[in-house]
Each structure stands twice: as structure tokens, then as C-alpha cells.
């Protein structure tokens, strides 16, 4: 299981990097098209947006590690250490439940996208909506990996 989660994290890292390269490249194609071709290809903006959403979705979970998500800790830091530890576990539990619910509805949202098509490339919107579901899964996965250890009595 540990190995599986680790492989998925690695996949997310590469997913972030590839999607980032993709949206950078697509925007460069758009600029090139505008200056050196008769007309910039209309699909580049839409495709770049999808790549961007995927890059953000993959990176959202990775950002759980470190201090990327800002919080507001001045009050809690003044409380006893034991309380802080328990609070950490409580926050962790709530976030896991929140991400589970979010991911469940995000998958439902993806299903809705099967009947819609994008305006210029005409791909199914489910492809684009999947970014939000990936975000939920990515957050959930990193939370599982980062679970705080319960203190021994």
C-alpha cells in the first residue's frame, strides 16, 4: 500500500511538470501564431486552460507538504502542547472527510461533463472537469501520506 501511494505521488509530481510544460508550450504557440502566422490557432487558449487546471490539480496535493497552504496559528500556538497535538489530529480527520466528500461530488461533476462539449476543440467537458476530481484525489492522497502520528500515552 505504502509503495502504491508513493508511486502515485511520483506520478503527481510528473503530472504537474508535464502539464506545466504543456500550458507554457501552448501559450508560446499562441504567441507565435499571432506574430508569425496569419491568425493564432483558436484552440491554444482552451487547451492551455485545461493543461493549467491539470497542473494545479496535481500540485494541489503536493502542496500539502511544506507551508504552502497558509494558516493563522497565533491563537493555537499559545495553548498547551498536548492540546495542539490533539487538535492536529482533529484537523487532519476533518480534512480527510472534507476531501472525501469533495472528491465524491467532483466525480459526479465529471459524469455531467460527458454530455457537454467544449466550444472550440469540441472535446467532452468531462476531460476538463476531471481536473477538479484529480485535485480532490491528489489532496486526499497526500493527506493519507502525511497523517500525523498519534502520541503514545
Amino acid at each position: 500500500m505504502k509503495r502504491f501511494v508513493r508511486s502515485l505521488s511520483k506520478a503527481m509530481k510528473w503530472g504537474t511538470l508535464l502539464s506545466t510544460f504543456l500550458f507554457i508550450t501552448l501559450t508560446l504557440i499562441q504567441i507565435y501564431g499571432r506574430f508569425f502566422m496569419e491568425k493564432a490557432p483558436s484552440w491554444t487558449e482552451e487547451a492551455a486552460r485545461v493543461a493549467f487546471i491539470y497542473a494545479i490539480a496535481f500540485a494541489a496535493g503536493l502542496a500539502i507538504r511544506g507551508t504552502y497552504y497558509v494558516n493563522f496559528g497565533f491563537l493555537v500556538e499559545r495553548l498547551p502542547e498536548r492540546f495542539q497535538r490533539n487538535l492536529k489530529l482533529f484537523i487532519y480527520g476533518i480534512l480527510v472527510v472534507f476531501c472525501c466528500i469533495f472528491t465524491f461530488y467532483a466525480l459526479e461533476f465529471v459524469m455531467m461533463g460527458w454530455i457537454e462539449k467544449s466550444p472550440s476543440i469540441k472535446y467532452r467537458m468531462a476531460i476538463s472537469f476531471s481536473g477538479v476530481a484529480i485535485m480532490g484525489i491528489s489532496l486526499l492522497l497526500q493527506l493519507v501520506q502525511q497523517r500525523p502520528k498519534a502520541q503514545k500515552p
Partner: protein
Amino acid sequence: MIWILLVVFLVCLLLRFPIAFSLGLSCMVFLVCNGTDLIIMPMKMYSGIDVFVLLSIPGFIIAGNLMNHGGLTAKIISFCNHLIGHIPGGLALANIGSSMLFAGISGTAISDTASIGSVMIPAMKKEGYDPEFACAVTASSSTVGPIIPPSVPMIIAATLSGLSVGKLFLAGALPGFLLGISMLLLTYYLAKKRNYPKTERSSFTQVAKGFVETFWSLLMTFIILFGIIGGVFTPTEASIIAVLYAYLVGTLVYKRLNFKKTLAILLDAMKTSASLMVLIGFANLFGYILVSEQIPNQIASSILGFSDNKYVVLLLINILLILVGTFMETIAALLILFPILLKVAIGVDVDPIHFAIIALLNLIIGLTTPPLGVCLFVASGIGKVPLEKVSKANLPFLGISLFVLTLVTLFPDITLFLPRLILGE
């Protein structure tokens, strides 16, 4: 019912939930209590981030990080030191000058405090400056960053309100320089009074060499600004050009970047961007709930019911935003409050561009307002000085920032002069 949303949000914030998830959780609890289908959550998250101009945020963050890791910060500091280091309090002045120049590249205050502070605070301490003064100068001067373009909060304000990013960038330039120059004058006065040291005057060759070394990075700011303002690029395209440019300068000119390092920088920048986008997505949902419950209208009519005098309304908004800016992260506060307060400001005939700069200045000043200003925390951490001492040393700088805010609020021309001159009405 709306109280559920606000109470859960505040409780989550106080319990140290990340701000983005505090927004998401409070919305979820509200929607459940209201009996609304929770599918609205991913829908609003998607519509909040599926905006082309938001692609410019990771673009600017990646470009700033590439430049920073390419050795730019040290070069800017060295150039400023050669240029003004010989004046009393030279290193402190160079610190402010560096923030003004670096502002055009990073676009965020906290990253300015961290990157410039890590070089400048130890150097100032070594030269004999009071450690708390070194921290206060660094924290305060870094707030100039998000006012001088390009600025990430300005892109977000433009996305929220439909204002032109180019106009906002231009509008921020004069207030940003005014803030920076006021800080330079205050520092000079304090340095004279406290007899702070000065460095040896640099030769013309040293200054020229410093300029050549920083030229390539400063050219990036020029390309971004004139590309957007001149209508050559959209903000997103300008940010991607900046990424390409920063990569080429970092590898070919400064020779400090390699493929492996670039991948690490990209990943780090995307994590920062993702945390912002999650915040933007949930704030979009939060905003949707507020609008559907007609809260902006109620707030607008209560403020306008109190007074319909433009200056009284602006004073009330200034007080509210500084208080919020003290407690809340700039972008989160901007996302929640800017659309609501913009409506109030427009109601009393305040130009939206003028108001956007006022709002931004307020929230940025909050970053250095005790007891919770984030930049003060970062600077005191780098300088290993107690926060109370840094907060006290920062009071003159806070005073000067509030003075500039008052000028910008009372005289709209400070903000609107450049957009009118260059882009017309």
C-alpha cells in the same frame, strides 16, 4: 442562515485550518444546512480557476523563482549598494532600493521579505545596525513589491472585477514609487539621527558593472510592463514570455540554472500557485453563497446608510481593510472582500481602478501591522529578533505607509494619472 457560514469560517481559521480549507469547510456546512446539492462545490471550484488570465499567476511566480535562483537577488543588492551605499544608512537604503527593483520581478511581499531579508538582515547586523531596525526595514520595504507592477494581487483584483490588468499595473506604479521614496527618506533621517554606518563610495566602474549585471533581469520587468500596456501581449502571454526569458538569462547569461534545478523550481512554483488556486476556487464558492444571500447588497446599504460622503465611506473601508489585512492573508482577504467593497465604492463615485489600488495598499500595509503582520514574522524569524521588538521598530515605517495611503485615498490623480496619460480614459 448566513451566520453558519461566517461562524464556521472563523472557528476553522482560529483552530489553524488552512485558510483555503476554512473557506471550503464553511461553505460545505452551509450548503448541507441549507439543503443545497453539494455538486455546486466542484462546479464553483472549476469556474473559479478556469480563467485564462489566472495562468499568468504561475507564470510570474515561475519567472520570479527562476530569476531568484539564477542569482538575481544578490546582484540587485550589490548594484543598489554600489549606487547608494555611501550615503548614511547606505545598506538600509540599498535594502529598500533592492525591494523596489525586485518588486518588478517577484510580485509578492512575503517572497521579497524572505529573499532580500536572508541576504540583507545578516549583512546589516554585521555592519552595526540595530537588528530590529534591519528586520523592520526589510519587512516594510517588501510591501512596495505588490504595488509596483507586475503584481499577483493586482491580477486577482482584475479577475474579480473585470478591470484591465494593464490599467491596474500602471495605476500602481506611482503609489508604489511614492511609498518606496517615502521609506528611503525616513530611513535616511533615522540613519542620520542614529549615526548608522555608510560604506565606501564605489567607483563609476563598479556602479556600471553592477548595472550591467542586473540589466538583463531589469529588462524582464520592462518587457512585461510594456508588453501588456502596449497591447503586444495579454498578461498571461507576458508571464510566459517572462518564464522563457528568465530561463534563458538564468542558463545562458548568469549560468546558474541547469535542467534539474529548473525542474525543482517549476515544481515549487506550481505548489505555490496550486495553493493559491485552491484558495481562489473555494473563495469563488464562498463569494457565490454571499451573493446568493444578498450579503454584498446588505453591506453596501449599511455602509451607505451610515454616510454617503465619499471620504467617510473610504475612511470606513480603509479601517476595515487594515484590520482585516492584519489578521488575514492578502489574497484571501482580496477574494472575499474586494467584490463587495468595490460595489460600495462605485456607489459613492470612486473610480474602480483608484479603489483597487486603495484596497491593495490597505491589505499590504496589514502585512506589517502588529501583532500579526506576516512580513514582520518572516523578518523577525530571519533576524532572530523577538517580534515585539521588530513591531516597535516598524512603527515609523507603518506611520509613513499610512500617510501614503491617506494621500492615495484623498488624491485619485496619484493613481489615475499614468493610466489616463498612457491609455486614455
